[in-house]
């Protein structure tokens, strides 16, 4: 599998470290339902068979955290963007 790093170009996936679903956003710890929200954020997953937006870290390259679209049925790669560029406050897709 090869991931097109937006900075380094296409590299073998072995250069990257996988974290998982990029959808969940870290909740507000001060909200009254923070415990439940954090449980959901950390543990519950849609886990789709098909296109999946996920976080990868280009650990052996530029050390960018990337938001990667990838198909979990075919391993086809879609859009890849730097997570930092997407910003903190962007709502979940």
């Amino acid at each position, binding site marked *: *599998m*090869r991931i097109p790093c937006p900075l380094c170009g*296409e590299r*073998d*996936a072995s250069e990257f*470290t996988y*974290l998982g679903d990029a959808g969940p956003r*870290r909740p507000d*710890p*001060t909200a009254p339902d*923070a*415990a439940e929200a*954090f*449980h959901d954020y*950390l543990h519950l997953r849609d886990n789709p068979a098909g296109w999946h937006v996920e*976080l990868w*870290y280009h*650990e052996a390259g530029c*050390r*960018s*955290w990337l938001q990667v679209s990838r198909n979990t049925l*075919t*391993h*086809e*790669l879609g859009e890849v963007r*730097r*997570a*930092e560029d*997407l*910003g*903190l406050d962007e709502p979940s897709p």
Partner: protein
Amino acid sequence: MTAPDRIVAKEGIAAREAARPAGAAAAASCRRREGGLIDRSRSLSFSFDGKAFAGHPGDTLASALLANGVRLLGRSFKYHRPRGVLTAGSEEPNALVELRGGARREPNTRATVVELYDGLEAASQNRWPSLRFDLAGAGDLLSPLLTAGFYYKTFMWPAAFWEKVYEPLIRRAAGLGRLSGAPDPDSYEKSYAFCDVLVIGAGPAGLMAALTAGRAGARVILADEDFRVGGRLLAETHEVGGRPGPLWADDVLAELAGLDNVRCLPRTTVYGVYDGGTYGALERVADHLPVPPPGRPRQRLWKIVARRAVLAAGATERPIAFGDNDRPGILLAGAQRSYLNRFGVLTGSRTAVFTCSDDGWRSAADLVRAGAEVAAVIDTRPDARCPDGLTGLEDVALIAGGRVVETRGRLGLTSIDCLDRDGRRRSLAVDGLAVSGGWNPALHLTCHQGARPVWRDDLATFLPADDLPPGLAVAGAAAGGFSTAAALAQGAERGAAAAEAAGHAVRKPEPPEAEDGPVAVTPFWHVKESRARAWLDFQNDVTVKDVALAHREGFRSVEHLKRYTTLGMATDQGKTANVQALAIMAELTGKSIPETGTTVFRPPYTPVAISAFAGRSRGKDFRPVRKTPSHDWAVEQGAVFVETGAWLRAQWFPRPGETHWRQSVDREVLAVRNAVGVCDVTTLGKIDIQGADAGAFLNRVYANGFAKLPLGKVRYGLMLREDGFVMDDGTTARLGEAHYVMTTTTAKAVPVFRHLEFCRQVLWPGLDLQLISTTEQWAQFAVAGPRARDLLREIVDPDHDISNQAFPYMACGEVTVCGGTRARLFRLSFSGELAYEVAVPARYGDAMIRALMAAGAAFEVTPYGTEALGVLRIEKGHPAGNELNGQTTAANLGMGRMVSKKKDCIGNVLSERPGLNAPDDLRLVGFVPLDRRAQLTAGAHFIALGRAAVAAEDQGYMTSVAHSPNLGHSIGLGLIQRGGERIGEKVRAVDLVRGADVEVEIVSPHFIDPEGERLRA
């Protein structure tokens, strides 16, 4: 052109023949005096089962043995049936040998692909005492008992007999060849390659594809598993562009070799298609040599990234299932032609051809042309006739609508019985039988990403599916283009398309002229009239009857069939078996072949040595070694080293006269407590953090407060995972207004850095901070003990005041040492003593340890290793790896109060879950044995006094133990339920796996200086 009726007229002659001793010639040379692609001017000697033979350059082991009249090459797996050569390629199920001797022995090596070299040694396998006399062959008589899956139905009584009796017997029969038992002495390497077009297979289609793409300027890699390019052209007598096929192939190769943008890889099998256009290929660099030349690998594993690929792997011929179709002397027709035309070997002195298509007729024609005797062509088609374009077959008998039903010959074929279309039976004395059941495209690689081949009735075969791996196209016989002309045309077309897709302008290629015979296959899977077993999977001894049994018992899906009968599970992966078995299952179920299923293939296409996948990463080179800056110095001191992750660290420094490691470690510990010790702590992770928001960031990644760390101060930091459990601990020093340096544990340096980057880039991209690892930049030494300051005063340049007032506990700063070398000084203590860590640029690390030792001589300085480091921290009650095991919370470690509830930090929300705050939770406390002579052991579990050692009584476990030379007895740290409330209580530390059961007292984890006076001294 012969009139078909004349051929039919010859049938009478064949029918009248008695069984004459055709096998008698078996031992004589079967090599023709001329013809073929071997170099008769040179002779290569080799041996098989200890007997010496000779062959020629260009031979395979199989062709050389056949040339020497050796037909019996091996035994089958289950019934130990005598077996010869079936094929001339990598699909071979029968002719497996142990190649080479000693540590280089390679079991299960297909003789059909072994390139002959001088001095080659091979031996037959899976037989005892000898290949001709194999006692286990008697098992063949029991075959009615040993049906598919018989072992699931027996060996159950008495129960204890399975491991003791039955299974050992089964395991004695297991496997084929033997490993040497010694480490593989050869070396292996990996190589990376990138290309526009990867062409897999160098037959007519592949050569044409490579030539077309290469001429267009594309970066091309052409790989072929054979040692000579040409593919089927080498085995047939076809001409291409008016040139003999092999010579045309040589011409193309020569042109390709002259193109800078083309790389040709002979002896290279593309074994797998992986994601993103990555192809795995194995190059047999030195398998055709007795031993690899110095410095060279035996094999090279290529990882090829190709924008486009053309699969031109040809096709594999199918056998036909008939009674005893497995005898030596029965070959696939295409293989028989390969031995004849490429190697100049006759595989029988008198040969019959059994075919269901025109293709088998080529064998008859080539044999006749070579002056060999053809007993008959037995063609399953009732209206069979000699195909157009084949000549010289006027005198060959034809049995149209015929079937071979039985064969004879214990160790090699002597005769066959066949039926004609009217059911008349006749015997033919033959020692060769060439069988052609049609061709299966070698589409294996197209399945590697999940595509399923599709059945084509008109071609009576599976063809590659439409959902091919991205970038892969198929050409030639692999795509069903079975004629040479079709292969050339498809190769040119796919090669052009691939080059164009990679951005190269292609001139429309003109494929050379070649035969374009029609493909007429009337599929014929098995001879129903045969009473004897008819083999499908030769190696695993799966017969038509086994498929019928599987059907009867309900194992009807293709996967059930394979798993129940072991069809297709042998070293050839069913390349010559799966399609026939599927067709027979279709017959039995009354469904069509596509309704019944399909056969798919997974990597690797042909088996790949495990060594090749490991490459250079083996033995001591399994993983890189990280050495500390003081490594060479420690070696000079005679240090004993220990692997801690990738690092090698000094474990202790033995002195003359010390005979037990404890003596060294006790001395080192006492030296730190009583004088001063020095330890290389470079391995701790160091992360440079700069930016306006660095402080705020630290306050969020540490559980304890970091917002107000003053300049010039260090603070202990506890880092949680988001789930509330402890991730790591360490210290962070503030060196500047917006400049911090974090240390992590050695083990967690990489994951913590990754986590911090996650927090910085993903969670809080608005914060201004930059991270970079400086673990490698600084050589860092702990200087610990009551005389640490005295020693450092010799090292730190005098303009820096390091007095207790100016540089108190938890102070830090940039200093210079040894006359101007810049350094960092931290007043930190892991041991509980007055201690510092001093860091210098790593280039000075070696000099620094020497300077510290020289300067410290006056203070009795002692180097200490990781073992003493461990004892010191246990005495002080500091948690380390055994406690920070990812399963502990801050509360477990007695640091619950450090987790700030007032701020947002990673982990504090979920750390409040009830499961992390149960009343009977584990707490880290100290333990001492009641009998001070007793040794504590880590991993022991705590059981209340007087209670049984059972799981229900389990109260926790000992995490770390040490012999404390200061206290004079064994001490331990452990996690026990409600530990903090139970100081003074006595429990048992039960270590069943070490046979220990020690009564211990629960004590404070701070065995030394609980008030912390020493470290502030």
